[in-house]
């Protein structure tokens, strides 16, 4: 719909049918008289066109002059709609009522949903919210969201954050329960908080107690962070979340050249009978291992004891011939292996559930025979640890 169409609709227009000897002349005369016609259609000797309501009366002299016969075949637009509506008041009343009902329905909260309540009772949260006006059937304007959020934080124990969002006809109460991992369990008051590890304090949120350190301070393990004492209240169980940057490091090195032994397949065996300090050759005593070999000895106790307290043993000595195998690594391969080893060692040091924010590696070469890698991981973790005051 163009702007012209909208304007015509608002003004109201008539669809006319013109018959006569020269409808072209009729069209031209109407145009020169300033009566615009639009959406014309020619069917045989008949012309149909739209004409605005205001111009309709001015059409008669033109029709008379051109000998054309003009008939109105339709009336369209807003004024006619109003006219029809006047004749059907009940329909109009129904439409208005529907609009009002639609508005009221959309301005009302019909459903209240609670998200994030795992340990807490959702019914309790709904009850507290309803005391601040947030209840199914309430108008959206009848309650203050900030007030409901504040009321939930103060009224329900165990909520650390609450938000109320309204989507259409549904109000969603989002809550975050206090995380027992974030909040250390404090056994008996009064209790201080000390640093569990060395680190640099990134943020310190004190819930109870008096802080003795500030954000940005460097602390070492055992340093006092928060004293379990509050002016006016006296001794308390200190509670705080102390997020600190903590570094862990592990070192591993790999040789560029290694020498190992590999069996050649030649094996010699010799069996002896050991009686106290005396050894009696039984079999294979004539064999002489050649070259480089590895020796292993197995002893089998025999049910025979001598007067000196010794026990007879069958001693089997195995000589396995080996040869030298030299293994050379490129510096890049050695560094990669050292890096993997350092990371594995580092993973063993990290506390459970802590994910490092950043890794850094320092590579060192020692005497061109060793590649060493020092891996360092930086974490952000809560280092507050309760320490009962004695």
């Amino acid at each position, binding site marked *: 719909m163009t702007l012209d169409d909208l304007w015509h609709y608002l003004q109201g227009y008539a669809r006319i049918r013109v018959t006569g000897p020269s409808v072209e002349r009729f069209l031209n005369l109407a145009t020169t008289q300033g009566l615009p016609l639009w959406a014309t259609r020619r*069917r045989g000797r008949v012309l149909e066109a739209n004409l605005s309501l205001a111009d309709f009366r001015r059409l008669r002299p033109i029709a008379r002059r051109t000998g054309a016969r003009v008939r109105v075949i339709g009336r369209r637009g807003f004024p006619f709609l109003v006219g029809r509506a006047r004749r059907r008041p009940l329909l109009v009343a129904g439409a208005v009522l529907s609009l009002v009902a639609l508005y009221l329905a959309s301005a009302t909260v019909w459903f209240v949903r609670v998200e994030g309540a795992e340990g807490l009772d959702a019914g309790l949260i709904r009850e507290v919210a309803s005391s601040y006006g947030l209840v199914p059937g309430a108008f959206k304007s009848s309650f203050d969201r900030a007030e409901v959020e504040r009321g939930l934080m103060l009224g329900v124990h165990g909520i650390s954050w609450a938000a109320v969002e309204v989507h259409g006809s549904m109000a969603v109460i989002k809550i975050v329960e206090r995380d027992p991992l974030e909040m250390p369990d404090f056994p008996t008051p009064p209790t201080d908080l000390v640093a569990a590890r060395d680190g640099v304090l990134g943020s310190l949120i004190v819930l109870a107690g008096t802080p003795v350190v500030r954000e940005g301070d460097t602390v070492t393990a055992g340093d006092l962070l928060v004293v379990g004492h509050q002016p006016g209240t006296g001794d308390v169980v200190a509670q705080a979340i102390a997020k600190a940057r903590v570094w862990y490091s592990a070192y591993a090195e790999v040789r560029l050249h290694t020498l190992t032994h590999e069996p050649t397949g030649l094996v010699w065996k010799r069996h002896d009978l050991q009686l106290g300090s005396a050894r009696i050759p039984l079999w294979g005593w004539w064999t002489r291992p050649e070259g480089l070999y590895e020796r292993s000895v197995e002893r089998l106790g025999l049910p025979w004891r001598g007067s000196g307290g010794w026990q007879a043993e069958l001693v089997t000595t195995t000589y396995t011939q080996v040869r030298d195998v030299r293994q050379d690594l490129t510096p890049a391969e050695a560094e990669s292996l050292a890096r993997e080893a350092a990371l594995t060692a580092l993973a063993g040091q990290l506390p459970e559930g802590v994910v490092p924010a950043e890794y850094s590696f320092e590579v060192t070469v020692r005497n061109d025979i060793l590649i060493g890698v020092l891996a360092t991981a930086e974490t952000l973790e809560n280092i507050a640890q309760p320490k009962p005051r004695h």
Partner: protein
Amino acid sequence: MSLGRRERISRGVAEVLELPQDIILNVPRVTIIGNLQMTIENHRGIIAYSPEIIRIGIGGGQMTIEGEELAVGSVHSEDLSVMGRFRRLTFVEVEEAPPDGRGRRKA
């Protein structure tokens, strides 16, 4: 001054002054969108109107639009629009009517 000479002078003036020729020469400005819609500004009225052919008076002659399902969308004194599927557009020059009142077609 004959019509041809006057036209030549007008065209020369329009070229020298870099003015739009449709204003100086009193000729129509025709805008065609594909073969579906046409707007004719500076027209002189509708001479013939049928779904197959529409003839429109313009300065110095007529223009004929031939096609299918032709219809005049809107008519104003300054411009008119034609819709439909156009097949052919022809311009016919008509000399000014002599004293006896009859025009003579030029082409």
